[in-house]
């Protein structure tokens, strides 16, 4: 180009051109890269930038309160601070320091993160709930170091009455893998609380609220710059039970230091007024997050504190069955006034001597005295006369041998033996001697305390057995507008037969009967005792072992003429029905104070509060 070729890189012009080509290629390449990222993939990066700067923190919805029939709190929620961790942005070193600072087991923390990642959760994993002042101080002082940790307001379940009604109420806990796989919990996130037992489990979806969220703009170090959005949380709904905390409290008082159960029902509609089981536990420790050792201790305790004996345990029902057998005798026309038995302390049948509990014998007895004094020999004879099939039919009519379908989880059906059952179970024929023991509620016969209350209560109502409910029909219609109360099972019972049986059960308590401990001056109490052998009398006396002691029952109702309450008390190894009758009496005494037509008095309130401890 120029005139001074001799001095220039004339021959290099081609190479200069090469440079231009190279530079052009570089610029085209850069421009293409920018085009790809900025225009083609723009949406993707815009979303990533949004995720960068928008931080979403969950806001916990309060779980619905559980209230007794008078609106007193059995379970409620309070605000508590929760530490959450962003697993994607933490390191093993930080995690170790955080875990030790919050007194957490590092292995469990790792396990939690691992589990969360299995469910696709990396953000906002709950590290620790209900932080203590010490935890807060630890995190606050290091908030710039531990940027992966967020503090949010959570909701902590509180059981102000502590162990009162714990078996009926149940408790909550983190949803397990098994639970998360259930269809019912399909929408639940990993780390959500669910009801684990009792009411908390049964009415979980009604009680559970919907968590909301708060969105912030944060800068790169997680400082909140601005709030941009909020999805409000929807609190769970309250649930009112039919339980009366006062009756509940006095039931549990009666069980202190014992193993056993108390169930109080309103026989007119099946509402459960009290349901106690002992030994029990404090559900608050489940909320606080169990340590493995505590859980194992509770779970493997031979006294089975987690078991709700009222509906999940069965015992030989003993003499409590006698009014039902009596009903069978009357309805079939067998146990007329001239059907008597002579009790000389026992009965020889089929080559075996069956004892009466009274060694000296009751002399000649008819139905009323036989029930009042619980004469075994009379019922041996009546049972043998009726035969096992009739016994089974009437036991089933009263509700034995099948679940009551109370609205609580994990109820067991108990057992009413029958010929078919015997053959199926052991491929052996029914032996006549077995009918003898079934007649007094022993042998293979097994029942839950709630069945005992239901059976006697329904009989006292003249043959109307209402399905036990722990949530009233009114409350159920709130939960489900289409709710229809279950139909009661009704049997036609002759008026005079009913009078006879009531008379017999009146005698048990108020005459020369076995349940005189249950007598009250303010109201006429009827009932039936039961003492069920665990082993033969000889073995029990010889061994002297406490766990060979007889199980003691008492089922009472009041007032006799028009029953409003029926109470079943079972004392495991309680030795004598005498003690069970006393438990029922104490409950009925408080019930009298609380009777719907009697105003709630201060003294009855104190019963519940003194036991529950101040909330």
């Amino acid at each position: 180009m120029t005139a001074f070729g001799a001095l220039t890189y004339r021959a290099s012009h081609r190479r200069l051109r090469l440079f231009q080509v190279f530079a052009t290629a570089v610029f085209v390449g850069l421009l293409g890269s920018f085009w790809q990222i900025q225009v083609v993939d723009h949406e993707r990066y815009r979303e990533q930038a949004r995720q960068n700067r928008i931080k979403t923190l969950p806001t916990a919805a309060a779980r619905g309160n559980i209230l007794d029939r008078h609106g007193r709190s059995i379970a409620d929620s309070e605000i508590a601070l929760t530490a959450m961790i962003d697993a994607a942005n933490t390191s093993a070193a930080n995690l170790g320091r955080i875990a030790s600072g919050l007194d957490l087991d590092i292995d469990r923390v790792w396990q939690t993160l691992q589990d969360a990642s299995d469910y696709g959760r990396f953000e906002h994993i709950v590290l620790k709930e209900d932080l203590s002042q010490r935890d807060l101080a630890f995190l606050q002082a290091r908030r710039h170091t531990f940027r992966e940790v967020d503090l949010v307001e959570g909701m902590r379940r509180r059981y102000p009455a502590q162990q009162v009604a714990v078996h009926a109420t149940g408790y909550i806990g983190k949803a397990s893998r098994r639970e998360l796989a259930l269809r019912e919990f399909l929408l639940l996130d990993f780390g959500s609380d669910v009801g684990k037992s009792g009411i908390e489990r049964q009415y979980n979806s009604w009680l559970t609220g919907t968590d909301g969220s708060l969105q912030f703009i944060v800068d790169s170090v997680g400082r909140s710059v601005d709030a941009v959005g909020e999805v409000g949380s929807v609190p769970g709904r309250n649930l009112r039970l039919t339980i009366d905390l006062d009756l509940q409290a006095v039931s549990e008082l009666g069980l202190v230091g014992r193993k056993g159960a108390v169930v109080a029902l309103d026989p007119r509609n099946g509402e459960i007024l009290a349901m106690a089981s002992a030994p029990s536990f404090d559900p608050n420790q489940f909320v606080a997050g169990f340590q493995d050792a505590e859980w194992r201790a509770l779970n493997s305790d031979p006294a089975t504190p987690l078991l709700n004996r009222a509906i999940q345990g069965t015992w030989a029902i003993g003499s409590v069955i006698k009014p039902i057998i009596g009903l069978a005798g009357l309805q079939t026309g067998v146990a007329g006034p001239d059907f008597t038995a002579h009790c000389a302390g026992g009965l020889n049948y089929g080559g075996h001597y069956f004892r009466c509990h009274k060694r000296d014998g009751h002399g000649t007895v008819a139905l009323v005295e036989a029930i009042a004094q619980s004469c075994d020999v009379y019922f041996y004879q009546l049972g043998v006369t009726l035969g096992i099939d009739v016994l089974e039919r009437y036991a089933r009519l009263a509700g034995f041998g099948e679940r009551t379908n109370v609205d609580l989880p994990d109820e067991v059906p108990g057992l009413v033996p029958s010929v078919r059952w015997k053959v199926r179970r052991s491929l052996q024929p029914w032996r006549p001697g077995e009918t003898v023991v079934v007649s007094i509620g022993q042998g293979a016969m097994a029942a839950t305390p709630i069945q005992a209350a239901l059976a006697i209560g329904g009989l006292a109502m003249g043959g109307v057995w209402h399905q036990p409910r722990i949530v009233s029909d009114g409350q159920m219609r709130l939960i489900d507008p289409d709710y229809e109360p279950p139909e009661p099972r009704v049997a036609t019972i002759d008026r005079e037969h009913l009078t006879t049986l009531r008379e017999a059960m009146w005698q048990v308590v108020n005459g020369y009967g076995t349940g005189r401990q249950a007598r009250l001056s303010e109201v006429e109490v009827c009932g039936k005792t039961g003492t069920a052998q665990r082993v033969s009398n000889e073995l029990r006396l010889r061994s002297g072992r406490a766990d060979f002691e007889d199980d003691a029952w008492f089922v009472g109702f009041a007032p006799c003429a028009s029953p409003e309450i029926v109470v079943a008390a079972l004392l495991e190894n309680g030795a004598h029905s005498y003690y069970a009758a006393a438990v029922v009496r104490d409950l009925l005494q408080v019930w009298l104070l609380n009777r719907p037509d009697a105003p709630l008095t201060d003294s009855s309130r104190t019963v519940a509060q003194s036991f529950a401890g101040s909330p």
Partner: protein
Amino acid sequence: MNAVPTRGGARWRRDFDWLMAGAALLVGILGLFQVYSATFNTKFYSAFSQHVVWLVLAIVVFTAVSHINYRHLVSLSPVLWAIGVLLLAAILLLAEPVNGSRRWLPLPFGLSIQISEFMKVVLLLVVAKYCAGSATKMLRLRDFLPAALLFFAVFLLVVLQPDLSTSLSMLPIAVTVLFLSRISKKHWLLGALALALLVPLLWASLKPYQRDRIAGFLSPEEAPLGIGYQIRQSKIAVGTGGMWGQGFVQGSQTQLRFLPTPHTDFILAAFAEERGFAGIAIVLGLYYVLLMRIADTARSARDPEGTLLAMGVASVLLFHIMVNGGMVVNKLPVTGLPLPLMSYGGSNLLTVAIMLGIVNSVRIRRFVN
């Protein structure tokens, strides 16, 4: 003042490369605004006013150097080299390390400069002085020897600081010479081999964090924090910009500080976020005009020194743009190379100003009177 006494003012104005200077100034001003946007609400808020001062200074330096006959500078280059090497040695021995390396020469008024940046200019001049003969005759190995020795001395001193990226940015100068010189294939291979030998040397001098950078470049998603984090955030910033950008001081990646060093190494990412692809196209267009203009100057230079100088400048600038831009779009590993004319920082800006001044000087003097 005027180093070309026979030139009149009008003539000088005519030959002055207004196109190159204009493109450079526009890029500088876009950079200045971006420095403001990236720093005004950070602890580096004073960067903007400082950068204004540097930019004014750069214009003055550019104009001044344009007036100096580049041939004088070429003949002075051994002296400049000696001063530079002394300063580099002094820094290495005396300066307090900043972030683990000794690069900064303290100046009065709290300012400090990186001598190594200016040494690029000195190396350009040295190469022009000793290798210009290659334009007319086949050079033998020993003709290259002085230039090679002077080059590697500086290169080594910078590696020792250690300053990987600045030493890397010197390589284009050597490559340009080899590229343009009329040398035998054997010597060409020898030179390429010598340069290739530098690679293990550089690798050995890599700090762990630099090796992480290369690892991070290879798989940015594996390491959300640290180096992969920077790359990821840079890409997000660029992508968020879209076609028209989020707007001045509106980029969330920049303003909420997700983007690392948005006023220095990653200024192009910040710019891309706030000005969009449209802004990027303009800036890259301006750079392209600048480079093509310098290449044109190289072609029309009146002597081999002029061609070598202009092409050296073009190569260094292209290298910077390529490495920095490639880093921002995650096509090349993260290096601390600033983007010429845009990144905040006086040393690089002044160095580029001097280089462009020399190119302008070459262009003004392309006709022999």
